Structures are given as structure tokens and as C-alpha cells.
């Protein structure tokens, strides 16, 4: 059922022409990389601020208000470009367990990012950032590093992508 869906996605004429034309395939990849850097980097900076090791001249709230809009805009570009790249080889990605691991890691990382964004203005009103908030921030950082490692391991270990 899922494979059938993948096959029809992969045989879609728009997906075929997008992925088989050099410039559009490259453009999709550029958007995917660039948005990934903005997504991961802005999240990481806020996490590092929550941990008290970055941007200490700003309150976590100030920094988060400045950076999180870019995080979510980048996530949108990243998901869209990622989906287009996935669609071009959907049949190969669907049963790839390393690809599953990557997607699950990204989902958790995004969930932790939402938790940190929700928490930052609340933690900021406390006399000190609570220890569990710092644990959330460490988990968010670790998940994004994990997502990047999973991302590079998909082509390295399975030859897909």
C-alpha cells in the first residue's frame, strides 16, 4: 500500500522532470542544505543560550524571538525540499530503515524545539533557568546532531540519495 503510493509519487511527471533535470535537482538540494543549516543553527543557538553558554548579553526570550521565526521558516523550506528529493526515489526510501531513523530523529528534534520555544518565556521569568529546561536543551542539541549524522549515513551506508 505504502509502496504503491511511493511508486505513483515517483512516477508523477512533475517529480520525474524535477529530479531528472540537473538545475532543478541541484536547486532542490541547495534549498534543502541551506534551510537545514538555518533550522539547526538557530535552534542550537537558542539551546546554547538556555544552557548559558551562548549570547549571554541577550535574554533567552529576546534571542528566541529574533531567531525562532527563521527556524520555522527554514523548517518549511526543509520539509518541502526534502519531500521533493524523497519523492524522486520514494520506492527506495520507503523500506530504508536508516531513513526511518533519520525521520524519527528529526520529528523528535522538532518536538523538542517546540518545547524549548514554549518554555523560554516561562523560564525567563524564573530567578534561574531550571535544570530540566537545560536537559531539554541538551536533548534538542543531541537530536539535531543525531539527525545530521543519520542524514549523512543514509547515502554512506545504503547508497541512496
Amino acid at each position, binding site marked *: 500500500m505504502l509502496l504503491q503510493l511511493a511508486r505513483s509519487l515517483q512516477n508523477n511527471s512533475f517529480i520525474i522532470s524535477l529530479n531528472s533535470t540537473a538545475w532543478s535537482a541541484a536547486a532542490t*538540494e541547495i534549498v534543502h542544505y*541551506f534551510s537545514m543549516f*538555518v533550522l539547526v543553527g538557530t535552534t542550537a543557538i537558542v539551546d546554547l543560550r538556555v544552557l548559558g553558554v551562548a549570547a549571554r548579553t541577550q535574554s533567552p526570550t529576546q534571542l528566541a524571538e*529574533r531567531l525562532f521565526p*527563521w527556524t520555522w521558516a527554514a523548517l518549511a523550506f526543509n520539509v518541502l525540499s526534502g519531500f521533493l528529493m524523497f519523492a524522486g526515489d520514494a520506492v527506495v526510501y520507503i523500506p530504508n530503515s536508516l531513513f526511518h531513523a533519520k525521520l524519527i530523529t528529526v520529528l523528535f528534534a522538532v518536538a523538542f524545539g517546540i518545547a524549548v520555544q514554549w518554555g523560554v518565556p516561562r523560564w525567563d521569568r524564573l530567578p534561574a533557568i531550571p535544570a530540566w529546561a537545560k536537559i531539554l536543551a541538551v536533548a534538542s542539541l543531541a537530536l539535531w546532531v543525531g539527525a545530521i549524522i543519520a542524514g549523512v549515513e543514509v547515502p554512506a551506508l545504503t547508497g541512496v540519495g
Partner: protein
Amino acid sequence: MESVLIGFGHWLQTRAFATSIAESDWAYPYVQATHFVGLSLWISTNVALDLSLLGIGNKSESPAKLSSALFVWNWLGLAIAITGGFLLFSVNASMYVTNVAFLTKLGLLIPLGLAMHIFNQWKVREWGLNPEMPVAARIAGLTELVLWVGVASAAVSIPYAA
């Protein structure tokens, strides 16, 4: 010139550290991941500065303050990216030194991007005093942004140019 570069490439990729990455079953993806982690810090903090120079986004604090708050992790990100990038380069140096996309990236776009970034980081202390970003700041921010997108484009084009 080309034979000198190729000679250097061969020399570099036969060094012990380069061959050990190339021959390892697991090292190469981790070097790639290191490059990407560094780039995430570097590119995201550059983009944050450039967009603030463009006057886009939350304005509750000045671009000057944002820039100085991000300064350390900005350059730390570049240091990590260069470390990973140099190791990736070393593994296949003789291919990279003749690759047009790579040469454009390293010889043209990165120096321009770096120069523009240093200029912006220096000038933002002056521009950042204005309530609205002056036109020069917007142009400078946009230029840097375009240059980094250009660097990423050249990087993605490396396999296509090989």
C-alpha cells in the same frame, strides 16, 4: 599551475590522516557531519545578521546587539566547518583541485562572502544605531546572503562538475 595543484592534491591525499579517513569504514560520514554542524552555526548566525540588516524580522533589539551576542558562536561555527571541510578536501584533494565548482567555491565565493561578512559585522555597530536600517545596510545584508547561497550552490554543484 594545474600540475602544481594536482601534485599538491596527491601529496595531501596520501598523508596518513587523509588515507586513514578514506580507508575507514565509518569515519567519512562523521567528518561530513562535523562540516555540517559547523556550517549550521556559521550560516544560521550569518543569515540572522543579514536578515536583521535587511530590516526583516523581530525588531525588539538592534542588529548591533544581535551581532555581538552571536559573535563567538558565529566564528566557532566557521572554525568547525573549516576543520571538517579541510578533512573532506584532503580525502579527495586531487579531484577537488581540478573541479570548477569547488574552485569557484573556495577561490571566489568564500573569500567574497567572508569579506562581506567581516564588513557587515564591523559596520553593524554604526548602522545598528539607527531606528531604521539605512539603504547601504540593506544592500550589504542582501549581498552577503546571496554570496552564502552562492557558496552552497557551488558546493552542491561539485558532483555535477566532476
